[in-house]
């Protein structure tokens, strides 16, 4: 009550302050004269890309204009959705991944939604339990340990083959990974080790990594761009944590010079959901259906470097030669992730910073 009077009181002042603005592009008219809302507001992260022609297609087939509100990364996005519960900034959210999914669903920030037509291949990415009714899988990506094959060949050394190898003395000081607390692929790798070594073993594994000289950076970009030997930064570490699509960026003379270790991968799945309290619920549903349709799915690999959940979509040529999709990625149940996330992160911090 107090807040409302207070804000109203301040408004006059603000109007004065803002009068001199030159960026003022007021929101597009959001409703037609008949009162039907014609804009769909999509809340998403910085990595979201929708090509102009695909966006035009959406408007043509549904009659809705799409407005993209992007900020931050997956973690920031998930938390801002939770914080704005009940009074969302938009109608539909895309970019909640499986490490945050149950936190968002559990907070009650999403409305139930069953997409009209899920591609057949999408069912294996569905969330377990109730969450499946509010989040629809849209794409996936695999976070894997990458190895600079050219470097190992030049040194005439054997490449590491497994996560266990990374703790062996012959690979001392050769591995760099972004940290779990500060980066989303870093978190995925922590979960990969949890999946592989179990609740009581993963912390020991990290202690061994630490003893073997693992370098932990804050983000993916400096692990790849500064420390990795094949990342263009003249780094000194030929083993990096990245994505299974990364070898496609290291193609020389038609062949990739690096490869991803397929049994070290953790699969990140991205979901979309309707926000509870959305001003345009039909529009939100329509956009999720559109994201699951052929045109949008086909635009994803080239624009967002992820795999569409629809396996009938043709992938870029470079991916055909350089990218392997792991058959059995390492997995951790999303509800378990939400329950233990804080505890795991704290224990991880202790293991690597000690």
């Amino acid at each position, binding site marked *: 009550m107090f807040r409302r009077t207070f804000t109203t009181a301040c408004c006059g*002042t603000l109007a004065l302050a803002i009068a001199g603005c030159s960026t003022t*592009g007021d929101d597009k008219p959001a409703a037609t004269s008949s009162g039907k809302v014609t804009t769909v507001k999509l809340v998403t992260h910085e990595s979201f890309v929708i090509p102009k022609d695909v966006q035009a297609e959406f408007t043509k087939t549904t009659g809705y204009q799409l407005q993209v509100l992007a900020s931050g990364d997956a973690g920031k996005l998930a938390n801002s959705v939770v*914080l*704005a519960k009940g009074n969302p900034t938009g109608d539909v959210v895309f970019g909640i991944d499986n490490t945050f999914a149950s936190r968002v669903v559990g907070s009650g920030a999403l409305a139930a939604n069953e997409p009209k037509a899920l591609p057949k291949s999408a069912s294996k990415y569905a969330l377990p339990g109730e969450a499946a009714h509010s989040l629809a899988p849209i794409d996936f990506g695999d976070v894997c340990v990458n190895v600079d094959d050219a470097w190992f060949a030049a040194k005439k050394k054997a490449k590491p083959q497994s996560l266990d190898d990374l703790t062996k003395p012959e690979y001392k000081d050769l591995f760099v990974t972004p940290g779990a607390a500060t980066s989303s692929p870093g978190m995925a790798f922590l979960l990969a080790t949890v999946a592989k070594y179990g609740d009581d073993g993963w912390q020991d594994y990290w202690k061994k990594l630490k003893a073997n000289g693992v370098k932990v950076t804050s983000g993916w970009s400096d692990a790849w761009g500064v420390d990795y030997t094949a990342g263009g930064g003249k780094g000194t570490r030929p083993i990096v944590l990245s994505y299974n699509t990364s070898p496609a960026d290291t193609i020389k003379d038609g062949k990739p010079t690096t490869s991803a270790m397929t049994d070290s991968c953790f699969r990140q799945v991205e979901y979309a959901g309707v926000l509870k309290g959305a001003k345009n619920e039909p529009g939100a549903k329509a956009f999720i259906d559109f994201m699951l349709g052929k045109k949008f799915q086909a635009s994803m690999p080239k624009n967002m470097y992820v795999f569409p959940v629809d396996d009938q979509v043709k992938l870029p040529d470079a991916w055909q030669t350089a990218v392997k999709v792991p058959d059995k990625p390492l997995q951790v149940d999303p509800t378990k992730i939400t329950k233990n996330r804080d505890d795991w992160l704290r224990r991880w911090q202790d293991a690597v910073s000690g």
Partner: protein
Amino acid sequence: MRTRLGRSLVPALAALIPLAFLAVFFLLPVSAMVARGLHLDGQWSLDAVRDVLTRPRTRRVVWFTVWISSLATLITVLLGVPIAYVTYRLKLPLTGLVRGLLVMPFVLPTVVVGIAFRSLLSTSGPLGFLGWDGSWQAILAALVFFNIAVVVRTVGGRWQSLDPRQAEAAASLGASPWTVLRTVTLPALRPAVVSAAMVVFLFCAGSFGVVLTLGGVRYSTVETEIYLLTTNFLDLRAAAVLSLLQALVVIALLLLTERITDRGETRLRSGTSVQQRVRRSDLPHLLLTGAALIFVLAPLVTLVARSLQVGDGWGLGHYRKLTQVGSVPLLQVSVFDALLTSLRVAVDATLLAMLLGLLVSFVITRRPTSAGGRRLLSALDATFMLPLGISAVTVGFGFLIALDEPPLDLRSSPLLVPIAQALVALPLVVRVMAPALRSVDPREREATAALGASPMRVFWDVDRRVLTKPLLAATGFAFAVSLGEFGATSFLARPENPTLPVVIYQLIGRPGADHFGMALAASVILAGVTATIMVAVERLRGRTGSW
């Protein structure tokens, strides 16, 4: 009687506008976040405060923040004052260019600077032998790198407008240059030095990207801790406690600086000082400036070099790609458009910050006769400094949960970006303008008023002459801050037209062959344009002596 009332009424009204702005866009969001963290089930849980403060990790983080920021501030001031002397007082060629170069770090995205430093310091880098990668020394160097411009510009601007006659008189009476410096010049500069030091300390304590990138997993500051607690753990309680702690630090710092300067600003006659010829005794300062330049240039050169590295060769490929929309899918606007958006937003933010900052400076530099009045003004001063000290994460998420009801549902409005930037620039404007305003001799004002001039007229005739230079300096600062700000802004919804820092962050975080190089190229462009603008503003200064 009438005049007495008028004398307190005008400042009161002048204070209301910025206060309302700050209340809505800063105090409201921050208190909303703090309330989320500490106000549970209808009651304030103060156990949380004790609980968080006694965590060993909290203690470590707070301690690290305090000592690294203090040390960085000390070094920045020790380097910055001689450089200010060389670049503002001596007759030397190219000083404008040097000042421009020193400003570049100030607007570079912190993540990019982190990467530039890491490229220098990593095992394979040219400075790898130092073994500083992931150490506190690296963080310290980066903090100094970022903030040197603050000291140089604040102190230099003040130095320029010192009336040289006092120093000349002392010298002609046989005082050695050192004595003149100690007894005449430094006391006159003290308010500016203290002001700059305070801003630098707050910038250091609130620095975020740099500490994350360079600190590895070993070091975190209160700011990075709040970020981790909020975005990863969603531990709003602990984040709220730490934000309150930050507020306390700002207030403590202000009290401390007031002690030091004890309001004893030397009165400035609006002298424009003539630049001196270089003397032999200036050699140490020149050498130091040279060294500082090399220090600032090294990371910049690294950036430029990496932005020119295309595959295994060299070329302008990354720059060319930045000009073509869609050369990589992420790039949905050309670099020119993004730059233009940045500049437009920066103009708005600067206007807003200058307008509000001038009002605030005008109010807090009044000299009330009562102790209560003085306390009130100190409190006002502290309030307007808060945005420099409080975590951008808290403000950013605060926007989300506080500005969510009509008439203020601004969460997806493009207005919020310049507003958020103006919030950060506002305290800087105040820190540059307030000392200048205080230094105006009140007797001059009184004399003019006694002759029947209206307050506006007094301002125009007396204050304006002393204020032109600081005004330009503050404008340049506000502009640079808003061009580079990506703390609170990064929490706001990306508008349809992204600014250049947004483009840089989008590019740098994505796997893909060219993204990295393009991000660095865009950073070089951002820094270059900012430096050019700042130098141009300085040029203006030279010609405004006679409006």
